[in-house]
């Protein structure tokens, strides 16, 4: 069962054991749905294929996750403005459907790696939101003991391999995981998240090429998930490359690819399960470009945005993934306005508690400065 958000005393409210009955959307040609599954979606998607559309309960579950992320991220922004959170802070507001959809296809044993916009990935994998927030608050109760901060979340036990601050630098690591998982003869895969801006960096190129190459021997089950939020900081895709079809860039590496509307959780879900399954079965990489948008500034410290118009932001807000999902839930009579409000209300309370926990936690003990430098006997090689 998804220990998910089950932090000490935090209400667990995601539906468990979601049955996945197909409801309209396409099923990947090469895979077939089995009848009547009552496995947990996140932990074990259908044995031999992709899910089709999610049913109502499943959508509600995903809705709650997206709301969790949204409210958590808003709390982060407040914490930053209050000076409680330091360093660099990048939130996922506007992009929630992407990680939420793809991690729905996560299977225990899989590995997830991303850059610095990493809170949702930890939360969705079940890291305790209290520990995540405490990390941002620089506390000893933090997910990585206060040592990494916002950009360096890790929850290795749950498959979350981090949390990296150098654009593109994490990409080669993801292939390494994928190789290792095949070398160790498991059927696990890597979900490797990357930004549009990172694709013009050499690290991406070298990694994608090697992934394609190793994939020929079935040694690289790596799903590249491009979070194309249209900008790398203030530089739009069109100002960073002459060839703006990011998915198609994978052609150069022999990696099959497609695009998905990253604002529509159902669309993401469909491709997520299908692509995940395919990568798992073949040991070959696959790439999905999710078209999305961050409706907030790049980093929490950014105070002006010369590089895009208010109008543009407004237009994208109309396709806000949470708004879109609410619309579906209402339209399909899965939830009414009141229940939506209720969910948000509950989540706010939860997050208030999370923030309180982070705030009240102690700073890490000073000895922590010197630990974890080396593994084994020589943790610290300096003086004192």
């Amino acid at each position, binding site marked *: 069962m998804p220990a998910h958000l089950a932090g000490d005393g935090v209400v667990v409210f995601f539906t468990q054991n979601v049955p996945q009955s197909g409801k309209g959307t396409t099923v990947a040609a090469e895979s077939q749905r089995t009848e009547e599954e009552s496995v947990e979606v996140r932990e074990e998607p259908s044995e031999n294929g992709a899910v089709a559309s999610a049913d109502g309960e499943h959508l509600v579950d995903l809705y709650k996750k997206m709301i969790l992320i949204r409210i958590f991220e808003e709390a982060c922004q407040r914490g930053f403005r209050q000076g409680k959170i330091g360093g660099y802070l990048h939130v996922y507001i506007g992009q929630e459907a992407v990680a939420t959809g793809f991690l729905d296809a996560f299977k225990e044993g899989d590995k997830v790696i991303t850059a610095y916009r990493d809170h949702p990935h930890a939360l969705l994998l079940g890291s305790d939101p209290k520990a995540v927030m405490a990390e941002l608050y*620089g506390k000893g109760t933090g997910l990585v003991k206060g040592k*990494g*901060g916002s950009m360096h979340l890790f929850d290795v036990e749950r498959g979350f391999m981090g949390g990296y601050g150098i*654009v593109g630098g994490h990409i080669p690591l993801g292939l390494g995981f994928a190789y290792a998982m095949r070398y160790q003869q498991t059927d696990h895969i890597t979900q490797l998240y990357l930004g549009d801006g990172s694709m013009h960096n050499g690290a991406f190129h070298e990694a994608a090429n090697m992934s394609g190459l190793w994939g020929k021997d079935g040694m690289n089950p790596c799903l590249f998930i491009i979070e194309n939020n249209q900008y790398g900081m*203030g530089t739009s895709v069109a100002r960073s490359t002459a060839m703006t079809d990011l998915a198609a860039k994978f052609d150069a590496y022999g990696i099959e690819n497609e695009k998905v509307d990253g604002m529509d959780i159902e669309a993401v879900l469909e491709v997520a399960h299908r692509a995940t399954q395919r990568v798992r079965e073949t040991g070959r990489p696959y790439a999905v470009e999710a078209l999305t948008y961050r409706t907030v500034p790049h980093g929490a410290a950014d105070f002006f945005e*010369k590089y895009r118009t208010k109008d543009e932001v407004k237009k994208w807000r109309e396709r806000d993934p949470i708004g879109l999902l609410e619309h579906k839930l209402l339209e399909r009579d899965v939830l009414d306005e009141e229940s939506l409000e209720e969910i948000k209300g509950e989540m706010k309370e939860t997050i208030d508690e999370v923030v309180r926990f982070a705030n009240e936690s102690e*700073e890490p003990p000073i000895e*922590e400065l010197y630990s974890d430098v080396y593994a084994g006997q020589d943790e610290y090689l300096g003086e004192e």
Partner: protein
Amino acid sequence: MPEKTYREALREAMTQEMESDESVVLMGEDIGVYGGTHLITDGLIDRFGPKRVIDTPIAEGGFTGAAIGMAMMGMRPVVEMMTWNFSFLASDQIIQNAAKVRYFSGGQVEVPLVIRGPNGGGVQLSAQHTHSLENMYGHFPGLKVVSPVTPHDVKGMMLTAIRDPNPVIFLEAGALYGTKGEVPEGDNAVPFGKARIAREGDDVTLISYGRQVNLCLRVADRLEEEDDVSAEVIDVRSIRPLDEDTLVESVKKTHRAVAVQEQWRLFGVASEVASIIQEKAFDYLDAPVIRVSGAEVPAPYARNLELAAFPSEEAVASAARQVLYQEVEA
């Protein structure tokens, strides 16, 4: 003299040189439309246009290499490394091409290139975003490396850097972009290879650069107050070439020295300083040169840990006291 921030002084130097020399162009990530992540180049794209203020993709190696190519053609690019932490990605270009192409072409080309950006720690930027790379780049012949700490010097050294026909690694005290100081109008070019005596004193020499100079000045005040000790503070400011003479002269006067750096101890600037002093002022030293460095750990995020990782007033004062009151045999 007008007071300006470090940021303004820096921008002023670049603007001045761009106005007087068409071959000067700026390049880097988000320096144009976005205004620069540290606002150093804010407004310059409007003034000089996108052919002279060039926004690049996130490709440190690629754009640094392209700038080297431009410089070989007689342009004078000033490249922003958004922070020096990203420069490992460009280190091949910097070390293998910029530093050496003049030599291995038998002197057929020059590389009048400046690479600039914030160096050293900030506030809770954590492990991947906290580096002091003066020793790393300072090791390689063919490069010049400078590290100004005052608004005056950042302007003056940028003027010198842009005019220099060689590749200059320009390490800014990123944590001090907002600090003010006197900055002359016009041309205050500061030559490379000359250290600055930030405070005169007779009893002990505190040697440093970058934001640690300010730390040393505070410690000097404290030593004066608490110990009635007169400390000289030297701002090395030019890492390569390194002004050995000023260091040695000072120690010949004070007989005691402490070298302070934010970077890690092994193979750092302080080791070089200690090594030079013991070599050139051996007979004048009344105590070993003591080094104060950052803790030997990747930078932690939590503020309390981070503060413990950077050199502190206490650590510097205690090192000074150690060299001051040391019993000397022989």
